[in-house]
Each structure stands twice: as C-alpha cells, then as structure tokens.
C-alpha cells in the first residue's frame, strides 16, 4: 500500500486505529515529493523537517484517541498563505526571501487541529494567471502530461494532490484559481461562498473576490477540509458569522428531485467538443440518478471577463502597493524614494503582475473611475442578479469548469487575452460571490481530465457537495490516476 495515495477519509481511519502513523504517512508524501519534484515543480518550498516534527506531535495526539479529522494529515499549502517562520513568496521575486511573522487564519486553524504541512505550493505570481506559468520559480507541470500546464493560479496545489504528493491542499480562487487547475489536474476543488472562510493572512490579490478553499482527491475529503476552514474570524471583518454546517453529513448520495440549472450561455463557440460531450454526459447521468435538468439563462455572462479584469486589477493595484522595498521583501537601492520604488518593483514583479497593476491603476485614475471601475461594479450587480433569478428555478447550476482541458506549456503565454478566456466559466461565480466546485467528469482523447463545475446559491455548499459526491460515488466515470 502506498500511503500517499490514500484519501483523507481512508487515512483518518487508519490513523485512528493506529495502523499507520502520521510520521509514516508524512514520510510517504515527502518521498513522493522527492521522487517527482524535479519533473512536476509543484512546490516552491518543501518543509520536510517541519512536517516530520508536526507529524510526531500529531502522533502523540492520535495516540490519546479522539483526535480531530485532519490530525496527522499531510497537506500542501499554496504559497499565498502567510505561514509564520516559513518563507512565503506568493511566487514572486519581490517576496523571494520573505518570512512572515504571522499565520493566516486558515493556517492557524489547521495547525490547531494537528494538520501537517509538507510544503508551500507553486502558483502564478500573486495568483495572477491561469496556468502557473507566471511563477518566478518556474511553471508547474501537469501530472497527466508533463508538457501541459497544471492550470492556475493554484496549479501547484492541484498538481500536488493529483500526483499524491499530499492528501489534500489549500488554494485560493479569485476568478477560477481553484476550479480551473482542479479541472486540469483531475481533482476536486471547491471555492466556497465569499466570506465563508477568513481571508486573514492570505496575500491579497483582489479582496472582494479572493476566497480560500481546498483541493482533494474526493468530494468527501474536500468537505472534511472545508469544515475546518469555514467560520467567523475576528481578524476579518468581511467574514460571515453564519454557523458552519457539518459538510460531511450533507453527503447523502441522494440527488432525487434536485433541479440542475444548465445555462445556455455556457455552451459557447471555442469550447472543445470533448469537454462539452463529457459535461452533457454527466448531466444525463444526473438525470438517471433522479435529478432534473432545467435550462436557465445568465444573460450578462458576456460582460463577466471585462468586469472582472477591471475590478480585480483595480483592487490589485492597491493591494500590491505595499511591496515597495521599505519594510520587507526585495529592495533595489537608489538615490531617492521614487527611484527605489521604481527599481524594486520593476525588478521584483513579473510581466503579468505589472500588466494588471497598470490596468488597475488606469481604471481608478481621475476621470476614468466612472467609466471603468464604477461601470464594472454595476455589471457585477447585474451578474449577481442573473444568478439570483436563475436560482428561483434550480437548486444548483452545472457547467463545464473550463472550455478546454489542460493546454501545452507556452501555448497561451504570448496572448494574455486567450489565457483570460480559460476562466470564462468560473469568473462570474466570483463576481457573484457564490460557492462553486470542480470535479472530474471524464477524460479527453489525450487522457487529460475534464472538469464539471457545480455552482450553488450563497452558502449553498452543502447542496453542491451533495450533488458532486453523489456523482462521484455513482461510478459514472472510472477515475484514472496520472501515470507519473
């Protein structure tokens, strides 16, 4: 038995019965990382020593019995979460040597339940990208095909889970950064409702869109991790005080009578036929399980990408202003402040980050605010209303996660607009603040995974997890682990 291939649900039972130890489990993951990393590049920093120490502590807790579900479970953490004492780069040269004095709330919560952190996962710099090619530490490769991207921005987290370098991982999703790489790497990824999980200590890209969420090998595992993350945080004023349900208990396997909305605007030109085929097949499968599909309309879908690239970049232009070379991070000295800022930021930021900072700065400039930022916020309201109206006639919405499967490394780097279209199905969900997940629903002729996106109403995590789990357990598709 290769321990690193276990799901959390399986490992938790074995750990509780002391048939395996957290140290053994962690070592299995670390061995796997050592074996694969040169090819995959899923991690920016591997924390072998710290992980073993955490596993030893977890074993003591497990020994006493009654340990929490994630005690001793090895996780990968996207390098966007501040981890006290462990370098946190956000995949940027500007934070290459930055060691935070603080833990993100999600990290603190996972530490408290005894989770083990095997390393900091690769990503697009400052979460800006859809392929993890915008990392100052090199692209992450897709475990199904090393010539292809893992998706992004949380590509390292997705690849690490797919390749069994950890049991689950944390990512963040601003426009699809959990769901798209989950789709490309054939794993489960969930972006909860905006405000469901604290953002404290998660390096901000676009504050009104960023949300924390897990990657896992199964829907159940995703539910287990999400339960630990969700809930009120006195350090995040935008975090919801709503009680957190036991998501695992929502996994009844029953979707009878569930109304699945299928937006007509989401089956567009440019979508790969195999992707559409797999999603349509999944929908038919749901019907055989007793769910009903209903056609819905989300009429403002076309404006989502434009609105997103104004709002997200505007917020980013302010969020990234703190990387100025004064207090921490890279500093390129100069004779005066202005020159110091210029040189530091010119050297420290990559091309896509600079592009988005400039876009956002422009969108907020005097005289342009109304035409761009304000207009985009109005579009955002219209998009949110589209979904509100749609949820009057359906319980969940199902769509492809991305129009294509994982593309070749370098294929879209020269054309940012093509790259932006990778998020065409996921971005609206962030603008509306809704929960969404991606799960595998088939493989294309190259053997690349295809993702099914399921979107819920606000705080509808239980419904989308139940629907996804039911599909997963029905055996509609045979999971094919990567051959790596």
């Amino acid at each position, binding site marked *: 038995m290769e321990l690193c291939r276990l799901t959390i649900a399986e490992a938790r039972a074995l750990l509780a019965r002391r048939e395996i130890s957290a140290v053994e489990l962690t070592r299995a993951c670390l061995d796997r990382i050592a074996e694969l990393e040169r090819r995959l590049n899923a991690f920016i920093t591997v924390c072998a020593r710290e992980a073993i120490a955490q596993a030893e502590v977890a074993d003591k807790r497990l020994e006493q019995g009654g340990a929490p579900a994630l005690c001793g479970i090895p996780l990968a953490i996207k390098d966007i979460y501040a981890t006290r004492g462990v370098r946190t780069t956000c995949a940027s040269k500007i934070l290459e040597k930055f060691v935070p004095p603080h833990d993100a709330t999600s990290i603190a919560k996972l530490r408290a339940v005894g989770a083990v952190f095997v390393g900091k996962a690769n990503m697009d710099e400052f979460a800006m990208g859809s392929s993890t090619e915008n990392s100052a530490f090199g692209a992450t490769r897709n475990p199904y095909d090393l010539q292809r991207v893992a998706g992004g921005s949380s590509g390292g987290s997705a690849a690490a889970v797919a390749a069994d370098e950890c049991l689950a991982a944390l990512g963040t999703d601003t426009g699809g950064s959990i769901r798209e790489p989950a789709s490309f790497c054939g794993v489960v990824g969930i972006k909860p409702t905006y405000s469901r999980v604290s953002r404290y200590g998660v390096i901000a890209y676009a504050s009104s869109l960023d949300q924390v969420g897990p990657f896992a090998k199964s829907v159940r595992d995703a539910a287990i991790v999400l339960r630990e993350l969700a809930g009120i945080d006195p350090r995040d004023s*935008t975090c919801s005080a709503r009680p957190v349900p036991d998501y695992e208990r929502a996994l009844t396997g029953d979707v009878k009578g569930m109304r699945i909305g299928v937006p007509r605007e989401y089956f567009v030109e440019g979508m790969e036929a195999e992707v559409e085929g797999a999603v349509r097949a999944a929908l038919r499968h749901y019907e055989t399980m007793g769910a009903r599909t209903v056609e819905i309309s989300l009429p403002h879908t076309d404006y989502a990408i434009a609105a997103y690239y104004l709002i997200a970049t505007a*917020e980013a*232009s*302010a969020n990234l202003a*703190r990387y100025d070379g004064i*207090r921490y991070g890279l500093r390129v000295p100069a004779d005066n*402040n202005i020159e110091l800022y210029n040189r530091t930021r010119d050297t420290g930021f990559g091309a896509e980050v600079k592009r988005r900072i400039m876009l956002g700065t422009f969108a*907020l400039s005097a005289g342009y*605010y109304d035409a761009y930022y304000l207009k985009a916020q109005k579009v955002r309201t219209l998009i949110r209303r589209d979904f509100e109206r749609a949820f009057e006639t359906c319980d969940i919405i199902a769509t492809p996660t991305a129009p294509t499967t994982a593309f070749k490394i370098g294929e879209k780097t020269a054309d940012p607009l093509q790259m932006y279209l990778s998020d065409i199905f996921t971005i609206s969900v962030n603008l509306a603040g809704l929960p969404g997940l991606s799960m595998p629903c088939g493989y294309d002729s190259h053997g690349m995974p295809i993702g099914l996106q399921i979107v819920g109403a606000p705080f509808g995590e239980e419904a989308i997890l139940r629907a996804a789990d039911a599909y997963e357990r029905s055996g509609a598709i045979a999971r094919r682990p990567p051959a790596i």
Partner: protein
Amino acid sequence: MEPATEKYEAVIGLEVHTHLLTRSKLFCGCAAAFGAGPNENVCPVCMGMPGVLPVLNRRAVELAIRMGLAAHCSISEYSIFDRKSYFYPDLPKGYQISQYETPLCKGGYIDIATSGGARRVRLVRIHMEEDAGKNIHQDGTSLVDFNRSGVPLVEIVSEPDIRSAEEAGAYLRELRNILRYVGASEGRMEEGNFRCDVNVSVRPKGATEFGTKTEIKNLNSFRFVEKAIAYEVARQIETLAAGGRIPQETHLWDPDREETRPMRSKEFANDYRYFPEPDLPPLRVPAELIERIRTAMPELPADRRARFVRDFALSDYEAALLTEEREVADYFEAMLAAGLGNRKTAANWVMTEVLRVVNETGSPLADAVPPPAETGRLLKMVEEATLSLNAAKTAFAAMCKSGGTAAATVGELGLVQVSDEGAIATACDKVIESEAANVAEYRAGRDKLFGFFVGKVMKLMGGKANPKIINEILKRKLAG
C-alpha cells in the same frame, strides 16, 4: 487712494486632522499612545504585512460621532471607507484607509467669538481615517517609526467661511476646546495629534466668486497658522494689486523665515485613485446608537460659558477663561459644591492661584493642585473669616506641595485667624495704654494714626487677628 488691503477680502478654509483618544489603533489592537520607543506599538496589521486585514475600532467611531454631534453635523447612518493611494515610506500599505464620498459626519458648524462679534463657521464634513507613520532623517539615513501608523484620526473640513487670521485662530481654539470637552481628542499640536492645513484665497470685496487658492501645510502651532495666513493674504493681495496672478499651489510654512514657500510640484501632484475599501463592510451606525451618544454628551464649552455668565454672574471674560479647559471648569464647579457663597472669590482663585500653579508646574491640573473640595474648604474659611486671604494663599501653596487637607495645613502653619473679641479687646487696651501720647494726638484729630494702632494690635496678636474686628473694637475704644 484706498490702500490695496482695504479692497480685498480673504477667504479661508481649514482642514484639521486630530487624533482620537482611543486606547488602541483604528484597525488593530496596538496601543495608540504617544511616546513609546520607535516601532514598539506595531503589529503585522499596522505594518502592512502581506495578507493582513483591518478591523474597525468601535470606540473610534463613537468618538468621531461625539465630535460630529458637538459640531451640529448630521451623522450618516451609512458610510463607507475608501482607499487613498500614494507611495510614501511612512505609509505601509501604499494606501491610507480614509472616507471619501460618504463621510461619517456631514455639515454642521462652529460658533466663534471674534473682536468683531460672534461668527459662525460652517463645516463641510468630518470623516475618519488612519494616520501614517513618521519618517526620521538622521546621520544621512532615513528611518521610519510606525507607532503612529493606524492611529485613528478625524479630518474636520470647514467651509471657506473664515475671513481673517484672527478668526482662524478663534476657530481652531474653539474646535480644540470642543474636542477636549467631548473627550474625542487631546488636541495637542506639539505632539502632532492636532494638525492643520489652510486654504487661502483673496478676492475683491463684494465679489461672489472665489479667487485661486493656495494650500499651506506644515503648520504645527496656532501662532504659525495665524502668521502664515497673515503672510499669505498680504502676499496674494500684493500680487493681485500689482496685476499678477495667483497659481494654484501648495505652500510650506517656514517658521524660521516666517514665510510660505511653494512646494515642488512633484511633491503633491497626486492622483489618489480613491475606491471603496473592499476589506471593510460599510459602516452602519444605527439611529439608536447616535441617540445614545447624543444623550451622554457632556455640556459643550459654549453652553457652559453661557451658563457661567447667567448662573454665577461672571463676566464674559471670566466665563471664557474658566471654561476654556473642561477640567478647569469642572474644578471651579466642584469648588462651589463645597458650599462657597461668593462665586467671584472662587472664580478669581481659580483664574489666579490655580492656573498659576498649573502653569508653573506644567503638570496636569489634577496633579498640580489639591482636590477642588479641599480648595473649596480653604476658601470657605476665608468666607467665614477664620482665615485671611493672604494666609489662604500661604496655605494653598503648602497644600499644593504637601497634598495635605485645608484644615490640617492651616492648623500646622498656625494660620487660623483670631476673631475672639475678648482677646482682641484686651490687646487694643494694651496698645491704647502704652501709646498714650499717640492716642491723645489721634483724639485731637490726627485720623491717620488709626492704621498705626491697627498695626500695633495685629503685631501683638501675632498677625492672626481678624482685621475687621480689630477695626471695630479699636474705633469704639479710641472714640471712648
């Protein structure tokens, strides 16, 4: 010909920034106190570490509302915070969290007294924001102290209703008094917790349009504000009168040369790119909270001044002096509570003795002088004639140093005034007996000698006799 200054009038608006008196900062739990060592009161939030988020200090909101109510503003039940972006080493996030389009308090006014009579200065708004850190330049390097970063501020923006340097000074003093009265701020310019920017323009008298304004910064005392305005108004009038133009500029006040100088345009050419702060939900202030704060508001300086004139028969000047500081006025009223009948005596005592000690020691009132009840008891002895006014001053000085009670101090120093008529009569008899020649002269019409006899009796009584009684008895006996 009329001089140029008579043809023009100044149009002045002030922007005052003042720290709110909270224990912790606006968006984190760090101490907001002044005076700690460099970068002692900092945390990841006020240092702008990656990923941190602001959490609004409720107390700061309440204090800002208090100030708003004191200035007759309308309090917004819904307001939002905005990001104001600019790069500066003391600004850790690269933006300041402020309020732009929806301030917490709108409108309002401050009434001021000037040599030309009462004037009303209307307010545009009062909004909340966080302070930045402080750059320190020494030995050729620059350092930043972030203790002040995130300390809560309100910015109080006046309409351009002010017409002279004198009015500006009166406005600032009244504003500071109000802030201190409502406990919103200490209003100390020297500690940098009360700062003022001035917008000045001039226009021909009678004109309704505004001239081009100059903004003056770096004004850290009331005196500088007044001097800078006077300088700038004169400069602008001179320029216009000579046919020149006033460019829209930001000037810095140079206190050494006592003049304003334009800043390099690079230093203020900012596009702040305001947009709503996504990390903070809109600030909703329920009407009940506003009412609760309104009900708990202390009496304001203007109201107290009027009451002192009305109820205590004090002059406008006395009332103004006594109410300038809330603690002084409180002290005065607490003294009266000790049962003093003569309010003028109490008022004079506070204005002379109490304020003198406070000024001399430089300590806060409560540390410098005895508790008001003790001072009240001391003055009560003067009123009841068991203590002379001079003896009371001696006792008061001793009490300030020792912290002793009025009764104990007067006793220890043997200052009690003798009003025993028998003892005084005996002393008078002795003096009359030993000064027979002088008595004869007095009785022959040399009235001036009366004071001489009083002095002799007082000397015999060790200086403690009640002079009024000496006068009475001596007069009677000499007449006999």
